């Protein structure tokens, strides 16, 4: 919660200093300084625009700007800078006015600001964020693919419509995703289950490349992803933003509209998104049945009751239908082998189509969150949160006798979560945060499928208790946290033997986890952080009890009721700094040891069924070692011209069998050249980018661990152009992005569709964002 209080603070900090000059008709002057929110460094080349006057200015080297000939009255001012989120101010002017405006840089861009940032939002761990500007310029993407540009983050996909983020090699049950402070609760276990979150609702998406999470309930073994809508700005007028995009690959388009107002009774924001796309295309052929459609709505209500008491209500509805490549629907291993040998998948058609048939997924996710904050004193506050989530997932297969209209998997999940937190700023720069949490999940298979369910019904209770203390000094800051979790899970499964009967299980777990971190200012512009975390993840229901045929790859998966919890010990060491305000460097090294790591292991046995012989995969445990590093550097060639390079390396090892771990991201290299023009005719913040991405072949796995060899490395070229301009009262932001410009044919190791088809070919995305 308090993550975004900073942005609110930034807003209030746009302090007004009124100087005592007699305000004649239209000879008032508005002047001031523009600085960075995190560092206080003056920002030059920032643009200022006064809507009512239709007049602009650019800040100088000292961050100073001035607008003259202002008439008395109400004025809307917009402040912008490349890589910064625009700040809108509403002022009533009657005399000469001086203001200071603080802008927040996107921390995804490595620059001076990222290096000397004082206020790490979440303690000593490494965080990377996308601000609303980068979200808007990637509005065609989903949550997973949006985060791909952050070093150390990859996506695991099933075609282009289904993707989930992977941070430092972990995803799904091992990576928590928090939507507006609430742990996303759905069917996270499946590789082909995307997180049910509309990223366009967020103003900020943050990845914490961490060692563990003390504050949140859930099984994170290190990193987390935070999707955060911001607080509604204290602005009495109706404001809004519309985003539209069109993309050539899949002929997709999307519309997003958000409206907000800070009224007298309370503040509200309404955000809606509509997206639709048809069959995607590889360089050679259409991927049949890979269209998708989405309709989402979110309502945010805020009420400040008094100086001490604040409440907010958040409602969101996420609804999607995603097609899965028709040619990837196979019956058995013979089919898979036939598919692997083909250049073009079965069922490929010559024509493009928007229609979505089976196999497909229909997912609905509803969230209701109520949060209230009460300030006991200036330094102490308590927060109370209730969140309810309803998740409905239906997956449709190609079936006989009209049964394709019946879902083959139909799961309903209802989650209730309550949390109480207490925060206290103690003397000597100590800060304490503590809280209690309880969570109930009720997961039911709807009996409409006519198929034995893949995972059983269950009701799970989790209770958690945590405390974090941190201390922030000029040169050093440190943080310690610990949490206790208890979980009881009552499971009701259906036997796989005859006669079918109900089999009940109960799982009980009690875990303690802890983390510590230290960050130290090595030299004036160099900072190092070290973090260590011990975390535990309980085996999930799918790992324990799933039993069934995995349609996507023609294998039988068997759960193992004897699995124990995974325990992880992760260390991260990061260094960032700059050389002569020209070269900015950031490096993060991590080593994570996971004892009793749960993975799915191919068995020697083949099971004979009426559909042929199937390979059998069983959930087993081993000791895993994940070691890797993320490197990023920016070189500022001139004021307007810079180069960015990023490299991510990860080696995942099964220590018992001395082999590589499957489904670990390949090493990858990114490079970009950026050219920026603050003001170009009537356009502002003009930016040209050429980007390159090279993904190496995953050489850690052997063909025996997979159905086929890992795909070769590949190189992709991209181009991006963006600019902003003011059209009367409208702020218009335009972008044009070309992906896979060379129309390269490639397959990606982490895309399950690679067994059947090539990845996407050339795509041109054009977008416009209008705000008022």
């Amino acid at each position, binding site marked *: 919660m308090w993550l975004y209080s900073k942005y609110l603070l930034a807003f209030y900090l746009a302090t007004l200093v009124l100087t005592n000059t007699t305000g004649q008709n239209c000879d008032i002057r508005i002047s001031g300084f523009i600085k960075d929110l995190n560092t206080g460094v003056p920002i030059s080349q920032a643009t200022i625009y006064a809507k009512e006057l239709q007049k602009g200015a650019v800040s100088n080297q000292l961050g100073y700007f001035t607008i003259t000939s202002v008439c008395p009255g109400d004025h809307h001012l917009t402040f912008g800078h490349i890589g910064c989120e625009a700040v809108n101010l509403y002022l009533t002017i009657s005399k000469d006015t001086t203001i200071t405006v603080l802008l927040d840089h996107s921390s995804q861009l490595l620059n001076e600001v990222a290096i000397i940032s004082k206020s790490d939002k979440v303690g000593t761990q490494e965080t990377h964020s996308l601000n609303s500007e980068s979200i808007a310029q990637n509005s065609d993407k989903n949550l997973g693919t949006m985060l791909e540009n952050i070093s150390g983050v990859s996506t695991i996909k099933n075609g282009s419509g289904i993707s989930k983020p992977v941070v430092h090699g972990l995803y799904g049950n091992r990576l928590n995703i928090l939507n507006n402070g609430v742990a996303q609760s759905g069917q996270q276990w499946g590789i082909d289950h995307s997180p049910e979150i509309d990223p366009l609702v967020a103003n900020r998406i943050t990845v914490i490349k961490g060692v563990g999470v003390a504050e949140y309930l859930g099984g994170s073994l290190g990193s987390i992803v935070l999707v955060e809508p911001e607080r509604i700005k204290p602005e009495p007028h109706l404001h809004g933003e519309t985003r539209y995009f069109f993309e050539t690959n899949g002929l997709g388009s999307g519309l997003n509209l958000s409206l907000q107002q800070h009224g007298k009774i309370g503040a509200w924001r309404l955000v809606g998104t509509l997206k639709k796309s048809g069959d995607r295309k590889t360089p050679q052929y259409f991927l049949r049945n890979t269209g998708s459609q989405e309709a989402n709505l979110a309502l945010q209500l805020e009420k400040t009751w008094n100086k001490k008491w604040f409440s907010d209500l958040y409602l969101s509805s996420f609804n999607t239908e995603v097609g899965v490549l028709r*040619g990837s*629907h*196979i*019956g*058995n291993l*013979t*089919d898979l082998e*036939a598919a692997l040998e083909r250049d073009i998948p*079965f*069922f490929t058609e010559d024509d493009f189509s928007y229609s979505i048939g089976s196999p497909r997924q229909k997912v609905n996710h509803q969230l209701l969150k109520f949060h209230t904050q*009460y300030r*006991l004193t200036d330094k102490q506050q*308590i927060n*109370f949160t209730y969140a309810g989530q309803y998740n409905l997932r239906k997956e449709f297969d*190609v*079936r*006989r*006798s009209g*049964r394709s209209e019946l879902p083959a998997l139909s799961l309903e999940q209802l989650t209730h979560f*309550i949390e*109480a937190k207490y925060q206290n700023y103690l003397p000597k720069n100590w800060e304490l945060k503590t809280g*209690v949490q*309880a969570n*109930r999940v*009720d*997961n*039911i298979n709807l*009996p409409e*499928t*006519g*198929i034995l*369910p893949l995972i*059983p*019904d269950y*009701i799970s*209770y989790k*209770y958690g208790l945590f405390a974090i203390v941190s201390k922030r000094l000029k040169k050093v800051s440190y943080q310690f946290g610990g949490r206790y979790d208890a979980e009881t899970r*009552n*499971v*009701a*499964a*259906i036997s*796989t*033997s*005859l006669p*079918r*009967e*109900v089999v*009940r299980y109960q799982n009980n777990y009690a875990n303690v986890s802890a983390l510590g971190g230290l960050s130290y200012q090595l030299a004036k512009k160099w900072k190092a952080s070290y973090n260590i975390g011990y975390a535990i993840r309980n085996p999930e229901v799918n790992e324990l009890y799933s*039993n*069934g*045929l995995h349609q996507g790859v023609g294998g*039988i998966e068997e759960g193992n009721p004897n699995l124990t919890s995974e325990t992880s010990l992760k260390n991260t060491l990061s260094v960032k700094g700059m050389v002569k305000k020209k070269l900015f460097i950031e490096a993060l090294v991590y080593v994570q040891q996971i004892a009793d790591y749960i993975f799915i292991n191919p068995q020697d046995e083949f*099971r*004979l*069924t*009426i*559909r*042929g012989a*199937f390979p059998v995969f069983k959930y087993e445990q081993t000791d895993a070692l994940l070691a890797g590093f993320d490197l990023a550097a920016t070189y500022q060639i001139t004021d307007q011209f810079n180069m960015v390079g990023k490299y991510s390396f990860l080696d995942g090892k099964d220590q018992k069998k001395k082999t590589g771990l499957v489904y670990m991201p390949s090493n990858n290299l990114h490079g970009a050249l950026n050219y920026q023009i603050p003001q170009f005719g009537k356009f502002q913040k003009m930016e040209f980018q050429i980007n390159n991405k090279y993904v190496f072949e995953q050489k850690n796995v052997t063909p025996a661990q997979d159905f086929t060899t890992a795909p070769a490395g590949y190189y992709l070229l991209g181009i991006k152009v963006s600019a902003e301009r003011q059209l009367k009262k409208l702020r218009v932001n335009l972008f044009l992005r070309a992906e896979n410009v060379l129309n390269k044919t490639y397959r990606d190791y982490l895309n399950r569709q690679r067994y059947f088809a090539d990845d996407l070919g050339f795509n041109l995305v054009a977008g416009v964002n209008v705000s008022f």
Partner: protein
Amino acid sequence: MKQLKLTLILSGLLLFISSCEKDEPKDPVIPNEEEVITTLTYTLTPSAGGTPIVFSFQDLDGDFGNQPTVSEDTLSSQTTYTGSIQLLNELESPAEDITLEVSAEANEHQFFFQSSTSDLSVSYNDADGNSNPVGIITTLTTTTTGASTLTITLKHKPNKGALGVKDGDITNAGGETDIEVTFNVVVQ
């Protein structure tokens, strides 16, 4: 005081939730697995008359549990048989004849018969609405004596127009495999 009150309220709420710890999921509805095929029977009746010869594959508990039961027989050389396939779901009581579902969707289904040797060959003896073969009724012809295997595959949504598919070549058929059963066949 206020803090104390709040703490009390919150711990009360937590206790309230934890009091439901005993609640268990309701008995799940055991699905009516009407789509499952448990049994395939390939009955070969000599054209000249005589006792039919039966090959069958039966797996009552589906993909898990016990191994399937496979029953095989011996064919005579230089003989022509009329082959007939029956599919059953014996999880239902009485057993449901899935062959009816297949013939109702004959356009979307095709059986393929692959022999490991030239001792025996199978040709189609039926057709769907588009005059393409289905394979529920076939003609099996044996030549010389020997041992071979016969693999019977049922494809759902094959591309019957693709090269060779009408003649029983599975290579370009595509679609999903609903059945793939291999029998050892002795021709003597």
